[in-house]
């Protein structure tokens, strides 16, 4: 099995900006993303997903190092101050590097 290193960027944030964010991700060079519905707690309190205003989404993007850094930087500068949002980065291995 040949595998290739890529970055996995995971963002947890408010469901209200899902559409906005996926457009930004594509603009910043992501070739794809995966979204699941989530709830949670953080510095901005409990987000229980009982209704739209308190729902989170969990967005994953597999991409190369440069794209990952670009997205992370952009989100930190443009979203961190105003939205419930966290993100983290991991090293992963993928099989078909040309896809990401």
């Amino acid at each position: 099995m040949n595998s290739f290193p890529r970055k996995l960027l995971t963002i947890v944030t408010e469901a209200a900006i899902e559409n906005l964010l996926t457009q930004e991700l594509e603009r910043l060079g992501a070739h794809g993303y995966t979204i699941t519905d989530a709830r949670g707690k953080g510095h901005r309190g409990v987000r229980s997903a009982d209704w739209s205003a308190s729902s989170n989404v969990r967005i994953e993007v597999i991409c190369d190092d440069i794209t990952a850094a670009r997205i992370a930087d952009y989100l930190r500068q443009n979203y961190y101050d105003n939205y419930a949002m966290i993100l983290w980065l991991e090293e992963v291995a993928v099989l078909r590097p040309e896809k990401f």
Partner: protein
Amino acid sequence: MHSLDPVILFFLLGLAAGLLRSELRLPAAVYDLVSTVLLLSIGMKGGVELAQHQQPGLLPQVLATIAMGCTLTLVAFPVLRYLGRFKRADAAAIAAHYGSVSVGTFAVAVAYLSNRGISFEAHMPLLLAVLEIPAIAVGIVLARGFSRDIRVGALLHEVFLGKGIVLLLGGLAIGWIAGPDGVGPVAPLFFDLFKGVLALFLLETGLIAASQFASLRRYGVFLVMFGLTMPLLGALVGAFLAWLLGLSPGGSTLLATMAASASYIAVPAAMRISVPEANPALSLVASLGVTFPFNVLLGIPLYHSLAAAVHRLLGG
């Protein structure tokens, strides 16, 4: 008497369950289903009436409603900014919530009138849809000036193609095209179940409202006061405007209720996108934690008396 309206009891049950931190929780999908049926049925009922009776002077009423939405937002803003000492973005966002309207409150008022056999103008759902929007635009301009970097596309989309507007206007169109006979086959779901579905909606709204109470203390007395007096002011404006427009007492009660109510679905979503620096908790605590319960429990019968009094005093 009003407090015995059973749908109100469902709201109180939800509120109590939420405050006691009960395990009771309705999935978001149920809220979606229930609010879809409510919006469609409010719209359709209006459309069917419109199909039967010519409504003269619709355009002036639509324009007056737009003006009312703008005015209420512009009145609320300085109060919040200078009396309440809120940051500009927060004051603008809260003001936009109060300039707009809550469909849930409207539905309770409709149930209130229908339980008492009071009729109202057929096109009120159209004014309801219209009133959702102008406050959002005003709020954004108040927060950011006429700046360029507003995400206009995303915003217009959010506002005009939001679920509420689409289902209200869609329901109106369906009712209007199909007419009273045409909607017969779907009446068992959309008309006969209306109040039962409203009961479920209020149960869930009660649960959500309760979750706002926790933040009440944190955000202080001013917000509570604002959440109690702004609806009264709105109701006065609405009742007076209704009289100017020549609405019936039922229609006046509805317009007063609309003016008194504060959005907690459409406007929060729009503000998150267009005025992200506003703290969304402030608006929700006020609109859902204070104003909605107040309107539903005490306000509506008050606005009904108010509308009747205005008609009596000013004639009409």
